[in-house]
């Protein structure tokens, strides 16, 4: 029974300690994520956030490196005028590439340095305080002390006077127990009060010292920084030094809530503009032969009317025999008519033959000769295949001597600057605007041209014309079409590159919470257009979301 009671007491005590840890009020230390790192002597850093800028100071030997970035975009700011109030007076920083340097001989001695930076960029002027704490290289770092005593010390609250109150508390418990035992049943209530008194006193003092706010001097979670290296901290947030952010090219955007058209994603395919493409077909079957310049190769530019190939219809054996027979007949008739004409020519002058008969014979001979010529010609003349439109040869497979079937497509001519997209939709759409994305991430603006009315494999084909540059696109290429509909959605629009995906398929974005701190935020996204997605849950307005370099941050371990 005693054991049970003691357990209850232990539980109650542990319970009563908890409100002290969760003290309300505010914290006087640096902002919670402030990297007041004092582990590495060379890596002492301080950071401050103004309204338009972020300033990070890193102690490097006897000089101070300052990183100045725009608050909203995280873009390094050049051409700034930075003057730092040091213990030895005001010193002006010099620009060195994308950072600023300052001679700081005072950093040779370890200690705490309160600096005031006056930053002027263009018309913006801000005065920002910086507190830099450096330790000497010889002093053993507290983080390194992995001994049992250090472990115990880390458990013991570091409040001044805590040890004293613990003694009073324990003494009170002990006294209460003793008196309770001595007084027996009747003295129980009095003993309980006696016991409670020191407890209450101890706690009231402690509460007084602790409620309100804590005047700790920046003893926030120390970050074991090993030089300028990005790392993922135990709580999942990322500590990325400014130097690394510069390499990653991290850029952010200050989000704002807005209303957007709801977007549908449709599978699509690039097709040639029906009015700017064509096929070259042989109307008769025959043998292909090249025009004087040879067959146009793939990708060659052709203009409307260019002869691309000839097709010579083959002549069957029976046709050849027929033609020979016909030739013979014609030749025979020609010689008969020629003889007759010569005779009439002699007689017409004497009047023995009417002039009319002579002329008719002349015409008959002419007609026979024409027929004979046509018969010869038709055997040699092939059909010319001409380009129906201007464009380039998109598809061609002619080989000289090849036999082409009637209606076979010999050439496919496409104007590469005029392409359309055919998308399949499961519902009738009336798009407000449309865009498309290729697998490579190319973003294309589209203009709606119309939807089919007949079902094609349970979906409706819709046509869109590609507006603007079609460079890098080809007919038949698969694209994802984003169609904005009349329906409205509220959310935060961010570029597609802002959303990273974890191995488990969860989408998240990185929020820039402090100059060198990034917090991954799980989000729910919906498609918005080719370049942007809509965060409908997980991030709100007024947050700085990483838009560039999110994938690199994702790989920080």
């Amino acid at each position, binding site marked *: 029974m005693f054991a049970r009671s003691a357990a209850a007491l232990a539980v109650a005590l542990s319970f009563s300690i908890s409100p002290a840890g969760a003290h309300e009020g505010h914290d006087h230390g640096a902002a919670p994520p402030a990297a007041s790192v004092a582990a590495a002597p060379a890596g002492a850093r301080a950071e401050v956030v103004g309204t338009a800028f972020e300033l990070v100071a890193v102690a490097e030997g006897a000089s101070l490196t300052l990183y100045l970035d725009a608050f909203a975009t995280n873009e390094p700011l050049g051409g700034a005028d930075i003057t730092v109030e040091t213990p030895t007076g005001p010193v002006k920083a010099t620009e060195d590439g994308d950072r600023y340097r300052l001679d700081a001989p005072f950093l040779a001695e370890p200690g705490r340095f309160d600096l005031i930076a006056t930053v002027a960029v263009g018309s913006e002027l801000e005065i920002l305080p910086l507190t830099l704490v450096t330790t000497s290289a010889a002093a053993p770092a507290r983080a390194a002390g992995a001994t049992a005593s250090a472990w115990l010390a880390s458990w013991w609250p570091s409040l001044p006077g805590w040890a004293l109150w613990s003694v009073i508390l324990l003494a009170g418990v002990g006294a*209460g127990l003793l008196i309770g035992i001595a007084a027996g049943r009747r003295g129980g209530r009095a003993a309980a009060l006696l016991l409670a008194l020191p407890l209450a006193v101890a706690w009231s003092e402690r509460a007084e010292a602790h409620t309100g706010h804590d005047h700790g001097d920046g003893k926030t979670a120390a970050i074991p920084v090993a030089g300028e290296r990005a790392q993922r901290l135990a709580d999942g947030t990322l500590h990325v030094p400014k130097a690394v952010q510069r390499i990653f090219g991290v850029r952010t955007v200050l989000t704002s809530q807005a209303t957007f058209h709801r977007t549908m994603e449709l599978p699509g395919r690039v097709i040639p503009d029906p009015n700017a493409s064509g096929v070259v077909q042989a109307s008769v079957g025959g043998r292909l032969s090249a025009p004087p310049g040879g067959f146009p190769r793939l990708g060659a530019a052709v203009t409307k009317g260019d002869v691309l190939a000839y097709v010579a219809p083959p002549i069957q054996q029976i046709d050849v025999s027929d033609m020979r027979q016909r030739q013979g007949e014609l030749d025979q008739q020609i010689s008969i008519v020629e003889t007759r004409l010569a005779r009439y020519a002699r007689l017409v002058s004497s009047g023995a033959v009417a002039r009319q008969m002579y002329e008719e014979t002349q015409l008959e001979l002419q007609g026979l000769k024409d027929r004979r010529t046509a018969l010869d010609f038709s055997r040699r003349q092939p059909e010319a295949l001409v380009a129906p439109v201007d464009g380039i040869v998109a598809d061609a497979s002619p080989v000289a001597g090849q036999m082409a079937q009637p209606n076979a497509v010999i050439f496919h001519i496409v104007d590469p600057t005029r392409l359309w997209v055919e998308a399949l939709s499961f519902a009738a759409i009336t798009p407000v605007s449309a865009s498309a994305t290729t697998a490579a991430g190319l973003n294309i603006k589209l203009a709606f041209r119309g939807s089919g009315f007949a079902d094609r494999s349970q979906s409706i084909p819709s046509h869109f014309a590609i507006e603007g540059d079609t460079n890098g696109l080809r007919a038949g290429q698969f694209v994802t079409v984003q169609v904005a509909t009349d329906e409205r959605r509220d959310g935060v629009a961010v570029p597609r590159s802002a959303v990273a995906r974890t191995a488990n398929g969860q989408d998240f974005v990185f929020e820039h919470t402090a100059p060198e701190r990034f917090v991954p935020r799980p989000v729910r996204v919906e498609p918005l257009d080719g370049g942007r997605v809509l965060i409908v849950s997980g991030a709100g307005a007024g947050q700085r979301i990483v838009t560039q370099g999110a994938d690199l941050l994702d790989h920080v371990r």
Partner: protein
Amino acid sequence: MTRRRIILGAAALATVVPWTLGTAVPPARAHDAKGPNGGQLTDAGKYHVELVGKGTRLEVFVSDAKDAPLPATGFKALAILVIEGKPQRIPLQPEGTDRLTGTAPAPLPSPPKGVIQLTAPDGTVAQARFN
């Protein structure tokens, strides 16, 4: 039985007393509140600093964490403030017993923006940011 009651009673009290004490205290004031002298009040290390601008005259009052005024004797301060779009460095000296004062080259804007660096009699330095 008695012992059990005693211990349980103590446990109950130990749980309840700090709880009530903890919640009875009103939440601490927010930063940048109005000070007792009509200026902006903000935190500087373990002190609270109130900045009052009267024309070109700058007055700084120092109080402790419980807003109890502290004598200005022994304190030193440096104010860097944005005045008429330019940064101005104004050293402050104790005047009388309760305040540090300095003179700005031009009338102070209201509210003043900038940083005050406070050096305590024990040599520790604290900074207060006004914005």
